[in-house]
């Protein structure tokens, strides 16, 4: 990469009306990722990349150990998300991964030109759809869930003097644990199926790492089916509350989790 004075930060690819570009589309963007620069578009026919000046210093000096709410990363990520959302309110978007930079606007235009058919196909796939996050978890913190068995073990000598009684009680507890984990597993399957049939696509995160979470999934839902999707959510929410299982829904999100596009190759002359 040759040295270039105008590295460009990319938020998303979206569609524009070639006739209306650029005035109408550039009207009211939130602030760029650096908090001050304007957000602009690089267009090629009906495709446009949402870009801004790259905050090179902020990104290269980003402390990677601080992921707290007040960290520099939090501010940058929220502003990145805000720009993607603003684009998504206008039209379908393909969000870029955080921190995507190209040397200049010319390289962005070249990317749109060279990959236009793949980009259009990907935009068509998610057009008029929004992403919803679903998380199913046990009610209460891990500490709360484990306090009962721990205290029962510690209290054991005062409750019972018989080793056999202790072992019998432990066996009963193990049976209860197995029954509970069966309930949770079944709940995860049922909830996923209930949402999956209403979604165009879905992704389920592998088990862990969140403590107590038995299902962590995302669904790509047509805007015409959202009311039904949310009413299902409301019903399941009440149903599982009685079983001490919490159903959380987040969204709507731009289709972050459904950008099924092979990595775009750049830099080929």
């Amino acid at each position: 990469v040759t040295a270039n004075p105008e590295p460009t930060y990319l938020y998303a690819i979206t569609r524009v009306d070639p006739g209306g570009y650029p005035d109408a589309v550039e009207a009211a963007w939130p602030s760029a990722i650096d908090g001050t620069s304007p957000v602009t578009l690089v267009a090629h026919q009906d495709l446009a990349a949402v870009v801004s000046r790259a905050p090179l210093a902020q990104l290269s000096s980003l402390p990677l150990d601080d992921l707290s709410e007040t960290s520099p990363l939090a501010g940058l990520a929220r502003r990145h998300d805000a720009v993607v959302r603003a684009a998504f309110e206008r039209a379908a978007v393909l969000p870029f991964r955080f921190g995507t930079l190209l040397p200049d606007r010319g390289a962005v235009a070249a990317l749109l030109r060279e990959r236009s058919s793949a980009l259009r196909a990907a935009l068509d796939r998610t057009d008029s759809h929004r992403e919803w996050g679903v998380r199913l978890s046990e009610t209460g913190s891990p500490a709360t869930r484990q306090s009962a068995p721990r205290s029962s073990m510690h209290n054991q000598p005062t409750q019972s003097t018989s080793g056999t009684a202790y072992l019998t009680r432990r066996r009963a507890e193990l049976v209860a644990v197995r029954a509970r984990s069966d309930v949770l597993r079944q709940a995860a399957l049922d909830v996923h199926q209930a949402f999956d049939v209403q979604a165009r696509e879905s992704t389920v995160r592998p088990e862990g790492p969140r403590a107590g979470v038995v299902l962590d999934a995302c669904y790509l839902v047509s805007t015409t089916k959202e009311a039904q999707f949310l009413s299902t959510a409301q019903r399941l929410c009440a149903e599982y509350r009685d079983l001490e299982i919490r159903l959380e829904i987040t969204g709507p999100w731009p289709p972050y989790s459904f950008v099924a596009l092979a990595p775009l190759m750049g830099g080929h002359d």
Partner: protein
Amino acid sequence: MNGAHPAISTGSQGSLADILERVLDKGVVIVGDIVVSVLDVELLSLKLRLFVASAQTAQEMGLDWWTRDPFFTSGAPAPVSRSGAAAPLEPPLPAPALERTASELTAENADLRRRITALEQQFGIGLADQKLQA
């Protein structure tokens, strides 16, 4: 529809972890010489997974190994194979003497029973067995 459901946070900005999981882990990736690289997003993504998993960090470090043994804690999760890219960062779990497999314990139990029976017969005090047989 917004705000109609207690556990449904629609239209909100989303929690930081929810946003980071999406912007760091997902999205279109450009590869090749043309990309300007000033930030290790892969490393950030790994750190995020560890951060989100912090509640379980103590367990993964083996500091409270017994909470993972169903016999000691009914709240212990069934052993699962850890997946995800965070795994290589985890230090190998220590293997405390008490953390043994069920088959090892069963074998040890059987061995101890044999030795007790042998001792009881040697000293002529196999009372428990006689009662059971009676």
